[in-house]
């Protein structure tokens, strides 16, 4: 029977025996320069996590701005018209010698082009800018935001704490991977400053090997993705080893919080899939620099081979994106409903199952370019991935049953996640179906599908996770009503932006179009308006956090009543997280028997509540005494 006893509580929260008293990891170690140097050279997983979080949010902002630019261009389609020339001074129509009116062609609806003074000029210039904008958006969002988001930011911070470790297995490697990330991002930004690239985030050959032939920027962008891959491999490797080797005594594999399971599955995917994109991008660079011809049809190479290589990585990577999102939901839902997660084991195995099957389905991105046999096999396998995902969705909903649900900001995000991710997942089904995919492929239906899963899934979970762990990370509460309000703004804006795109897609709107025929305009306009609302929502959330940092109330150790190890320790944690190696005596979700540490037994009448509270209070007192002793 899982209970909390002195030893346990002591180990988890209090200092005993371990010599020195440490302050919060956030306490500055001296003046400004010293502090900056301290952060820049830190091997503390928490600081690295926070640095990742800042970088990722910054890139998210840039990617979001590019997205809004994309949407603004799509507000109006590009049109050319013949109009009669008029004399600018008199306003009189110009006529030629024969008395015929002189016509000129006028181009309208070019928003991006107007920045370069290309308005009414060349459609190409405008479209070219648009193509650079969506490539920028896609590449930033995929390589610099969503892949590192949850694992590198929240995972770095919480994975070691959740398994009761002082740090990740290779702290210096961790710092290195942060610098590699920065270096990769710099290459990416450099490519953008040099004019940007217009390949799409998929870099399909032979377009990507021939466009901007005289410039290096495509090489830089590809190099950026290549370097970022290294960072991702190192993070994944670090986590796998940490989970294997650094779990606290008493924590068996099936005592791990599900966050850890899902991040573990993600890490395996990262380690195994990323090298393949590595070699692909390397060959792409060779192709551009030396024209080796491997992907060049003109030299006997095969452009479709590139697609196989690319998706062999990039499909697993979509699960690298969603599994950590699921990981966060795995924590938020049980904690905020004070309910044991339904089907723990099936959840853990579902994570691994998704990871395993995801290697076998890459061909579903190529139904219109690969052979029939391959298409058939890949279609069948794709449906298999949907099963473990379905299990997860049902388990989350099942967890709510007979819970004690508190509609906190993180919980609102979790519910939004369930809503949006289910739509995103279900719309994956017609894409996996052969006959409907040959209609929907490369249409806005696909765009809507992946925004529902990536943005509505991962990003919402990420932002929800930040809300969930914010008090722990920074020791400050935020204004919850405001947070919920902006969550709802995001929800409304999101659906307006992307639900319309499903209909655009089925009706025949291709993706990566700078312009479109008139019948699509109404839906595009709705979508653009939605994206502005979405932007306002995110800016609002950002403001909520800034406000919290500046004027937030001090956070207690355990604001939500969680049972996993991070809720036993101080907010914010001390440098070594635990004062003594924790020993785990109860499961992560034993809400029916364990009093959440720091909670009043009257509010939480579990059997033995008083005794548990007393044990916990003793441990805390010991910690206090210990602290004042020094």
């Amino acid at each position, binding site marked *: 029977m899982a209970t909390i006893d002195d030893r346990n509580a002591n180990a988890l929260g209090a200092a005993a025996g371990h010599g020195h008293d440490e302050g919060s990891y956030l306490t500055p170690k001296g003046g400004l320069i010293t502090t900056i140097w301290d952060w820049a050279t830190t091997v503390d997983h928490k600081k690295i996590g926070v640095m990742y979080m800042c970088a990722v949010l910054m890139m998210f902002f840039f990617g979001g701005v590019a997205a809004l630019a994309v949407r603004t261009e799509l507000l109006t389609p590009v049109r050319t018209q013949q109009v009669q020339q008029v004399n600018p001074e008199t306003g009189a129509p110009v006529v030629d010698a024969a008395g015929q009116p002189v016509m000129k062609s006028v181009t309208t609806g070019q928003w991006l082009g107007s920045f370069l003074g290309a308005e009414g000029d060349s459609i190409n210039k405008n479209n070219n800018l648009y193509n650079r904008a969506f490539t920028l958006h896609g590449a930033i969002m995929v390589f610099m935001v969503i892949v590192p988001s949850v694992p590198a930011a929240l995972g770095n911070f919480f994975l*070691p704490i959740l398994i009761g*470790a*002082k*740090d*990740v*297995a*290779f*702290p210096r*490697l961790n710092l290195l991977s942060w610098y590699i990330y920065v270096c990769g991002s710099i290459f990416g930004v450099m490519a953008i400053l040099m004019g940007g690239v217009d390949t799409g985030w998929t870099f399909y050959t032979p377009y990507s090997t021939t466009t901007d032939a005289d410039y290096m920027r495509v090489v830089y962008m590809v190099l950026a993705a290549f370097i970022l891959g290294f960072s991702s*491999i190192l993070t994944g*490797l*670090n986590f*796998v*080893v940490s989970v*294997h*080797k*650094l779990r606290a005594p008493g924590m068996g594999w099936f005592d791990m919080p599900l966050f850890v399971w899902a991040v573990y599955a993600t890490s395996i995917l990262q*380690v*195994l899939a*990323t*090298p*393949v994109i*590595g*070699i*692909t991008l*390397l*060959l792409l660079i*060779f*192709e551009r620099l*030396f*024209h*080796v*011809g*491997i992907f*060049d049809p003109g*030299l*006997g*190479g*095969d452009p479709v*081979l590139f697609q196989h*290589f690319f998706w062999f990585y990039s499909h697993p990577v979509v699960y690298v994106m969603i599994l950590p999102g699921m990981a966060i939901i795995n924590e938020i839902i049980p904690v905020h409903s004070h309910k044991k997660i339904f089907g723990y084991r099936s959840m853990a195995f579902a994570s691994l199952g998704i990871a395993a099957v995801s290697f076998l389905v890459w061909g579903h991105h190529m139904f219109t370019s690969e052979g029939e046999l391959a298409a058939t096999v890949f279609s069948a396998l794709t449906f298999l991935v949907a099963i473990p995902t379905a299990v997860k969705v049902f388990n989350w909903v099942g967890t709510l049953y007979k819970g004690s649900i508190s509609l906190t900001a993180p919980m609102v995000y979790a519910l939004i996640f369930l809503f949006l991710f289910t739509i995103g997942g279900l719309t994956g089904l017609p894409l996996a179906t052969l006959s409907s995919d040959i209609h929907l492929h490369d249409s806005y239906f696909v765009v809507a599908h992946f925004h529902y899963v990536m943005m509505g899934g991962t990003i919402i979970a990420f932002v929800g996770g930040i809300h969930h762990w914010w008090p722990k990370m920074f020791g400050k509460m935020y204004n919850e009503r405001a947070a919920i309000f902006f969550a709802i703004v995001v929800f409304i804006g999101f659906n307006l932006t992307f639900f319309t795109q499903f209909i655009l897609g089925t009706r025949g709107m291709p993706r990566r179009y700078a312009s479109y025929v008139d019948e699509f305009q109404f839906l595009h306009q709705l979508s653009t308006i939605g994206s502005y609302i979405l932007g306002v929502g995110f800016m609002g959330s950002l403001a909520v956090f800034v406000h919290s940092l500046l004027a937030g109330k001090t956070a207690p150790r355990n604001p939500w009543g969680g049972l996993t190890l991070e809720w036993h320790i101080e907010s914010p944690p001390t440098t*070594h997280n635990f004062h003594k*190696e924790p020993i785990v005596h109860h499961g992560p979700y034993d809400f029916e028997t364990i009093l959440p540490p720091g909670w009043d037994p009257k509010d939480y009448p579990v059997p033995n509540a008083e005794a548990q509270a007393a044990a916990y209070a003793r441990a805390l007192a010991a910690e206090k005494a210990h602290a004042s002793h020094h």
Partner: protein
Amino acid sequence: MTTVPIHDSSSPKPAKRLPWQDYKAAHHFRNKEEEFDGVKLGMWLFLATEVLLFSGLFCAYTIFRILHPEAFANGSQYLDWRWGGLNTIILLLSSYTMAASIRNVQLQQFARAKFNLLFTLVCGLLFLVIKFTFEYTPKWSGYFFFLDPALSHYPDSGKTALGGLFHFVEGYGGKRPGVLFNYPFSSDPYEHLWWSVYYSATGIHASHVIIGMCLIYWVYRRVSKGMYGPTHYTGVEMTGLYWHLVDLIWIFLFPLLYLIH
């Protein structure tokens, strides 16, 4: 971790305490053994990523071999299996000395360990020298090293470079990848693809040899400083694993490129 008894009791115990004797695991590991296991697991994962990196190249090789069998049959004829074979032997030998150096460190035979590491380093260098002077250079440019036995098969063109170190052979060079290909006597329009695959695969492998050599040099320095010993030899062991991988990949590349026609 296997603890190795110190047989070599005859060798005098160093009077000064060496750094390895005081080595403590990083604070977040419970002890040295766990740390060693962790690092080893990490290393194996990293090796897996390396294998996957090359598997992409093997895939490309297979696909193009199927698409253009003639080009591949033609191209591979220009590779001399004797150079490839010699390099294989060199790498195998170096793998042996690498393994031996780990054992030496475990047995506190530091002088031997250092010798074996140096030997491995020299083997790596030899491998690269052979690759570049006897294989890449003539094929790419037509210039043969003056000691190259193959030189005697060709008429002397009289053209030399680098003060006579390299002799030019008419109509031999130009076996380059992709558009750079300009070998005049190629009998298949796609032969450049074979060279693309050849240079990509062996080039990326050669870069791994260089990285491995850097690691070995680093380990050599640390062994000299007494950082490794029977109770702590993580760095040597990991470098060894890496070097074996470099060797292993060559073992696959050699038959695929040199022996299959």
